[in-house]
């Protein structure tokens, strides 16, 4: 059974108000084509989840698709500095920033993938984050005397990731750094993966070539070469500095349409069948 679909059909799996998990890390292997299509489709009230986001979250905020962001870190790195669209949206009270430690996002996703409502976190013992966020609380260790901080499970309705390879059946393989993508996929109700290449399933049966995400956990595969661009994709391409700068220079949402249009045929071009 083929899981191949168009980017439009894939993005239609996302509903307004969904909890949306995003793969990759900062400027690496973010599913930017899917992010762009989500904005084109004018999805609203999304609740974003990611350990460390950058352009993906920044763009979704400029596109006015976002209600809240659960993340440990939202910023470009050294060269491109701060995620100003995200910051402005938070500072204007449009987007709620639910600050995590990156690890508490991981713990919340682990809880979801284990089917449990919360996860104890050893390291979260001091500071205001525990007090101001209702997804953290302290409970008694039933086997000892100490208090333990726990984080509430997060189950994304949909995870969007970008990978190098998938077969038609939906098996997905991530080369190079995997970040939290595989955990995210297993913690989420649906998984959409855009990929650089569709490969025959028999390739994954070769030693050392096994897929990382089993097909039966995947809802849709979209074939989009350069689907992470202008972010990097290990083994395929590095960042596109000019495009990132052009985006960072956009001052408001009205300027975003042209930028998105410049990617539209590439994002939508493959597999319209």
């Amino acid at each position, binding site marked *: 059974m083929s899981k191949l679909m168009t980017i439009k059909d894939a993005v239609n799996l996302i509903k307004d108000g969904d909890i949306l998990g995003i793969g990759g890390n900062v400027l690496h292997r973010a599913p930017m084509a899917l992010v762009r299509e989500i904005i084109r489709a004018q999805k609203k009230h999304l609740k974003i989840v990611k350990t460390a986001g950058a352009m993906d979250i920044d763009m979704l905020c400029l596109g006015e698709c976002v209600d809240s962001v659960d993340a440990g870190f939202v910023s470009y790195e*050294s060269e491109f500095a701060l995620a100003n669209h995200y910051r402005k949206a938070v*500072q204007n009270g449009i987007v709620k920033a639910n600050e995590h430690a*990156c690890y508490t996002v991981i713990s919340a996703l682990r809880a979801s993938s284990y089917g449990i409502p919360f996860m104890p976190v050893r390291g979260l*013992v001091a500071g*205001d984050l525990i007090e101001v966020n209702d997804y953290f609380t302290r409970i008694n260790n039933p086997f000892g005397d100490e208090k333990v901080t726990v984080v509430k499970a997060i189950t994304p309705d949909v995870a969007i990731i970008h990978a190098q390879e998938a077969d038609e059946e939906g098996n997905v393989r991530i080369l190079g*750094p995997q970040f939290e993508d595989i955990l995210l996929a297993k913690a989420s109700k649906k998984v959409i993966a855009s990929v650089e290449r569709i490969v025959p399933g028999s390739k994954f049966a070769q030693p050392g070539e096994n897929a990382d995400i089993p097909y039966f956990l995947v809802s849709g595969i979209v074939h989009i070469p350069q689907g992470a661009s202008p972010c990097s994709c290990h083994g395929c391409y590095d960042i596109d500095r000019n495009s990132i700068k052009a985006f960072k220079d956009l001052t408001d949402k009205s300027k975003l349409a042209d930028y998105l249009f410049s990617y539209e045929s590439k994002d939508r071009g493959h597999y319209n069948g």
Partner: protein
Amino acid sequence: MDNIRACDIMVCAMAREIKNHNTVFHGVSSHMPMIAILLAKALHAPQAVHLNIPGGVNPEMKELQKYTSAGSALMTKSKTYLPLAEVFDLSMRGGLDIAFLSGIQFDNRGNVNASVIGDYNKPKVRMPGGAGSAVLIPTAKRAIIWRTKHDRRTFVEKVDFVTTRGNVDKIITPLCIFKMYKGELILESIHPTSSIEEVAENTGFPIRYIEIKTTPLPTEEELRLLNIIDPQDYRNIEFA
């Protein structure tokens, strides 16, 4: 002394904190500690264990990337992997010797703010967030903070928001090195390029110290290796 750069003093100071066999982690936006770890491994701590976000253990990096310290170069020729989630696990169970972290505001009780200026829910300034800090600073045996800004908005009487506190051991700045001592941030050493007056002027809490030491200058060997490890001078990007 005009040709001695703060970035070199800072990176060498960070490198010297790393002992042989230490497990050491750096995250995103962290060129300086990444380069410091590579320097320490090239020099006095060859058995230090370099951990990072992509998860390559002891990567043999040929080329650094300007825009990231979390790229796939950090997997080059690694024999084994410990991805981010498991680096955190390692720290949680007490196995991480050093975490290099940063922040935006610090006070003299070792509180770190990487979150907001103003109200948490409707902040005046939303900052990137502490990334791993909130769980690593309490659990790493030593959290070493570096910050390339040293002014009264950074070193404050009281932070606006406590993202975390815990095992902060040192804070390394362009002017000096602070050390936590009996629950208080005290001056450990002043860089030869600065002065106690300059430190005091730029620090929002009273400076206290036991003795005033001078941060050792980078050695010729250190500078030579730095130019091999980081020929593009990315250690200086936050100052450029």
